[in-house]
């Protein structure tokens, strides 16, 4: 009964911050996480979790995980928390491109963060159908992506050179590198072309950054969010122009390859034009997210 009252107190605190409905669900997920952790080690108490949440910290960092499709990935500040919009289009891409063990493909994910996109594809596609690579500039991201890769069982045996890694498994290798550095492909030991190139690059314009919810702005890496890293202005589309240049100049994408990039609200048309004009990918399609916002531009030759 006492713990009952304690919970009620926590619930009403949380409700004041999140509204009743979300508070009820989140408290329940915290309790679930505590129950599941209790066999191993009890890190923090429910009250501590609620206090962290009240201070604006995202639930996913507090619980240390985020489901992504059927996967349960590690989440850790400041690496960007995988979003449901990204989950949705990645599932869709897994049906749009259909590799098999007899027709395996290679995949490159630019700005890979937690590794969520290639890891879900490795999971959904048949064994031995894909060799995936991911690049990120943040060492925290690469560290987390490596842990996620090991948890999901898609790591490459490090003692084998990549070309000799067993082909009956899907594999994913996260690599620390700056995709805006013109020599990054060579430096990273990446050999284009790739059949599929995916990216959810930072796309938030500077002028929108300050008004982001604190749980985003104060806890997630600004490098993961700001679309124009070198500029105080801009439309947030710097990374799309860089990616277009890689496709045009470095033969990043195979002739029959597919490029899929996530975009921010209202950016799809502009990105579509960049990919057509600068990447020379004439065929483009826009996919909407479950909230009916134009979210992904898919481009082919």
């Amino acid at each position, binding site marked *: 009964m006492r713990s009952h009252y304690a919970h009620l107190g926590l619930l009403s605190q949380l409700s004041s911050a999140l509204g009743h409905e979300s508070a009820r669900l989140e408290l329940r997920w915290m309790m679930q996480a505590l129950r599941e952790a209790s066999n191993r080690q009890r890190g923090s108490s429910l009250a501590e979790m609620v206090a962290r949440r009240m201070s604006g910290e*995202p639930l996913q960092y507090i619980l240390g995980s985020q489901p992504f499709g059927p996967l349960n990935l590690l989440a850790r500040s400041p690496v960007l928390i995988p*979003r449901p*919009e990204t989950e949705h289009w990645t599932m869709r891409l897994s049906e749009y491109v259909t590799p098999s063990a007899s027709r395996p493909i290679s995949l490159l994910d630019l700005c890979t963060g937690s590794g969520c996109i290639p890891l879900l594809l490795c999971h959904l596609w048949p064994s031995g159908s894909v060799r995936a690579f991911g690049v990120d500039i943040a060492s925290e991201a690469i560290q987390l992506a490596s842990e996620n890769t090991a948890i999901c069982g898609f790591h490459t045996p490090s003692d084998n050179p990549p070309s000799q890694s067993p082909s009956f498994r899907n594999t994913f290798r996260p690599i620390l590198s700056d995709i805006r550095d013109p020599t990054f492909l060579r430096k990273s030991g990446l050999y284009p072309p790739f059949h599929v190139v995916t990216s959810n690059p930072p*796309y938030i314009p500077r002028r929108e950054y300050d008004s982001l*919810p604190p749980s985003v702005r104060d806890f997630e890496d600004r490098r993961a969010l700001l679309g124009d890293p070198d500029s105080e202005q801009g439309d947030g589309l710097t990374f799309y122009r860089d990616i277009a240049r890689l496709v045009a100049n470095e033969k990043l994408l195979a002739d029959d390859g597919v490029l899929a990039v996530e975009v*921010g609200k209202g950016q799809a048309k502009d990105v579509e034009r960049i990919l057509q004009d600068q990447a020379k990918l004439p065929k483009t399609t826009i996919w909407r997210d479950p909230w009916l*916002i134009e979210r992904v531009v898919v481009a082919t030759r």
Partner: protein
Amino acid sequence: MQDPDPTMQSLAREEQDDLLTKLTGLAEKTFPSLLVPPSPTAHLSAMLELKAGVGGSESSLFLTEIMRMYTRLAQMMGWQAVVVTNSTTDHGGTKDAVVEIKGEKVYDMLRWESGVHRVQRVPATEVNGRVHTSTVAVLVLPLVEDKGSEVDEDLFKMDEVRIEVMRARGAGGQHVNKTESAVRLTHIPTGITVSMQDERSQHQNRRRAFLVLRARLMDRKLTEEVTNRRDVRRSLVSSVDRSEKIRTYNFPQDRVTDHRIGLSLRNVASVMDGGGLQDFLDGLAKKHQDDLLEEAFNTL
């Protein structure tokens, strides 16, 4: 049989006894199974949907207890019970819940539990000692085996289902990191909707929503089959009116009464513990069997 020889006499009597046993056997076992075909739903598991009815918080407290009654029963029967979703109140009650129970003959044994369950007692919070009446609605749905895929071609097609996310997310994407995993399915031909939001994983919510949708559609199909069989209207138990009060749990009198078969049992606690519930299930199953038999005789 008037044979003067005592040996012959006793032989005849033995024969007669034999014949009697055989006849009784025929009447009790063979005839019914000849007349009443084996249950076509024997392989189905069940999904229980529980909803608090009249009586406010007392009703949701009783729902928690009813849910426990069924999970206890499942334990005793060696079935697997999983709470698929439940929304709890701030006072330890449950507003609604879905419980999946898997095992042999689960649906056949539990299907008569559908209906309104009524509790009469003095709520813990009632200072004047007045007896309150509250209700919980139970719906038992047939559960088809989860084949791993969302669609079950016998029940529906994917393009008949509208899948929606529930809350607005503003700009969404990188701008927002709030968990948003609620899902709503609408089966367009029937208008059936299923909402699921308990899990952090959109994927899980979606899977569970499809599970419930399949159960509802299966239920519809079975109910249609039953109403299409002409004689069944006469049967008491199988008339499926789910808004009907079927059972009363009277705590002051320590008595549980099933209104369809008129069976009354002392000891509410033993029923709530699952054990006593079996007597009701047996009674209802027997009633159903008798109804089917009568139907069969009438249509011979």
